């Protein structure tokens, strides 16, 4: 097989008859597939299911908080509901969502490979995810867990009689799914790049997934062993965290947050990569300061491991350690700000088109900035002591995780939907949903900043009546947000049959993934591409393609 040079930014041949979607129609051809694109679709379906399950629990929380009294449920039930919301959203949605769906689909395509390095391990990852998901659903249906998603000891080891071991096992298994995905990505990015695709030509989405994978590989094992230790403490009386034996419950928190703080970067980094792709395409410019944006991903991944104890400022850690961690926490702000400033600078004199993915990218930048800045407030010990475990914290991390991660994910889904399915989504409906999501999101979570600041604690099922007005606003926003999330479900499915045929490169975008057909053939490229151009070479695009076409 000889390698040939595909000219940059030239549309290839029209859709072939055989692609990864119609290459086998049996259930077996899907469930035993090793094709990274099919596995991405499997993930897409399962992750979406867990998103709506987690969203269902979110709606229960918001409904309960509509009134000051506990009328929909009482404390016990409410504890289980917010715990399930947290566990499902964190471990079964936010952590896998962008890497396992978009990353799985795009990493080999973007680097000109036929597949990930270990296709069967990739499939194993999905099965581990599903086994974990089934286990957590089993826990949910047979009694639930009431510790919050953080499983803090000694409550989780000594006092609660809910299903900690089973839930822990579910998280443990899902964790290995995540480890294997990260391992697969790192090896793939090191070993499988097309000829000529050097590190400084890689798309920023690849850089950010690489950084994410580092965190997955280095961090997840620590939370895995921590969960094992909690389980053996419950099952075999090995009292590692037991204060009666002189064990330290705070050690659990140290080990837990050593993973779970970097896990926040597992969630946000891939979405940052998506936003870099979107900004470049819809501003028709190379991302400003490419190298800084690329390396800032790695910097965030590394710095992310140095800051975990800012979750423990009021828990009883030493004041001096708290000061060190506070200082280090600020350092993560630097590479994050590098990204935001560089995206903004990319827009300058760009030829901007307001397609739906770009709307989500704008939403991401604004909301992530708010989430990030309030994060710096919380890294300041004085403020953190005041607002710890209030709705201020809840609002902060929802701005990052929903306003950030989910905006990036939805932007990416709209952007690559034509590549994944070969069909365009309906632009007008998509814009409406983007608007609903943005408005609904802010209406839901901005009042929570105020609620937290004036003292409403998180994780309570009832609250003093003076907090009701803001809580009603928040619940109202949540219902708008829900509509904004349901709408894409409907029109994406609709577009599978009725959407306009997309063609190989509907956005006239740069990037190897657009140089193959939509949907791509099973082995991605008929001939291994040889890359001779830099990433985002939009200045080499012919003038009549300078603006990304936006469907009406």
């Amino acid at each position, binding site marked *: 097989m000889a390698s040939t040079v595909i000219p940059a930014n030239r549309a290839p041949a029209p859709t072939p008859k055989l692609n990864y979607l119609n290459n086998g129609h049996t259930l077996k051809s899907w469930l035993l597939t090793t094709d990274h694109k099919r596995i991405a679709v499997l993930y897409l379906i399962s992750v979406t299911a867990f998103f709506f399950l987690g969203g269902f629990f979110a709606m229960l929380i918001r409904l309960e908080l509509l009134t000051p009294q506990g009328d929909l449920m009482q404390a016990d039930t409410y504890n289980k509901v917010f715990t399930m919301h947290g566990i499902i959203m964190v471990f079964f949605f936010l952590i896998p969502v962008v890497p396992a769906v978009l990353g799985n689909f795009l990493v080999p395509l973007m680097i000109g490979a036929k597949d990930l390095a270990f296709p069967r391990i990739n499939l194993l990852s999905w099965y581990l995810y599903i086994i974990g998901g089934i286990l957590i659903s089993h826990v949910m249906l047979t009694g639930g867990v009431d510790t919050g998603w953080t499983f803090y000891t000694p409550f989780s080891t000594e006092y609660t009689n809910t299903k900690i071991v089973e839930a822990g096992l579910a998280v443990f298994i899902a964790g290995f799914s995540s480890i294997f995905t990260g391992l697969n990505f790192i090896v793939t990015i090191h070993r499988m790049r097309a000829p000529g695709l050097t590190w400084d030509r890689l798309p920023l989405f690849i850089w950010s997934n690489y950084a994410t994978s580092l965190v997955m590989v280095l961090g997840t094992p*620590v939370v895995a062993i921590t969960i094992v230790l909690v389980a053996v403490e419950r099952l075999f009386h090995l009292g590692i965290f037991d204060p009666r034996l002189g064990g330290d419950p705070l050690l659990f928190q140290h080990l837990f947050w050593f993973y779970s703080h970097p896990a926040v970067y597992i969630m946000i980094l891939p979405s940052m990569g998506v936003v870099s792709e979107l900004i470049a395409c819809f501003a028709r410019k190379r991302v400003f300061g490419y190298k800084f944006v690329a390396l800032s991903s790695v910097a965030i991944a590394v710095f992310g*491991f140095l800051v975990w*104890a800012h979750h423990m400022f009021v828990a009883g850690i*030493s*004041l*001096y*350690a708290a000061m*060190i961690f506070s200082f280090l926490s600020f350092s993560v702000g630097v590479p994050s700000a590098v990204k935001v400033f560089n995206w903004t600078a990319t827009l300058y004199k760009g030829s901007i088109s307001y397609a739906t993915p770009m709307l989500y990218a704008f939403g991401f930048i604004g909301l992530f900035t708010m989430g990030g800045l309030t994060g710096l407030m919380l890294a300041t010990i004085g403020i953190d002591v005041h607002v710890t475990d209030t709705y201020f914290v809840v609002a902060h991390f929802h701005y990052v995780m929903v306003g950030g991660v989910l905006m990036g994910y939805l932007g990416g889904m709209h952007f690559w939907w034509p590549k994944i399915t070969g069909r365009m989504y309906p632009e007008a409906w998509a814009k409406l949903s983007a608007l609903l999501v943005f408005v609904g999101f802010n209406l839901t979570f901005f009042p929570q900043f105020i609620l937290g600041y004036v003292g409403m604690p998180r994780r309570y099922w009832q609250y003093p009546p003076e907090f009701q007005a803001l809580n009603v606003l928040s619940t109202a926003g949540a219902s708008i947000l829900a509509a904004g999330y349901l709408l894409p479900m409907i029109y994406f499915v609709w577009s599978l049959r009725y959407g306009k045929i997309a063609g190989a490169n509907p956005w006239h975008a740069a990037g190897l993934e657009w140089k193959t057909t939509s949907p791509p053939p099973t082995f991605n490229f008929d001939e291994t591409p040889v890359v001779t151009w830099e990433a985002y070479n939009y200045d080499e695009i012919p003038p009549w393609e300078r603006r990304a076409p936006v469907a009406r």
Partner: protein
Amino acid sequence: MSEHEEHTTHSQGFYLAIGIGLLVLTATTVGAAFVNLGPFNPIIALLIATIKATLVVLFFMHVKGASEKLTGAVVVSGFFFLAILLSLSLADYLTRSWR
């Protein structure tokens, strides 16, 4: 990257020599444990353990002489992040009693 650069395997005698070296080090560290060296007991024990681990990594796992530096970088990064976990945790525990 040439075809046969992988496998810097050594001779059988070399591996046996390393193995005997490891056994001697084990005997040394056990012997040292019976001598009261005060604060140096743990230091010597961990030093010998590190020498042994280094021998295993370099020669049995073929990191020394490997065709690429990447393997070494992976190993070092593993221990680096472990060091972060240990040192920043201790940053808390060792300063708890300070006032």
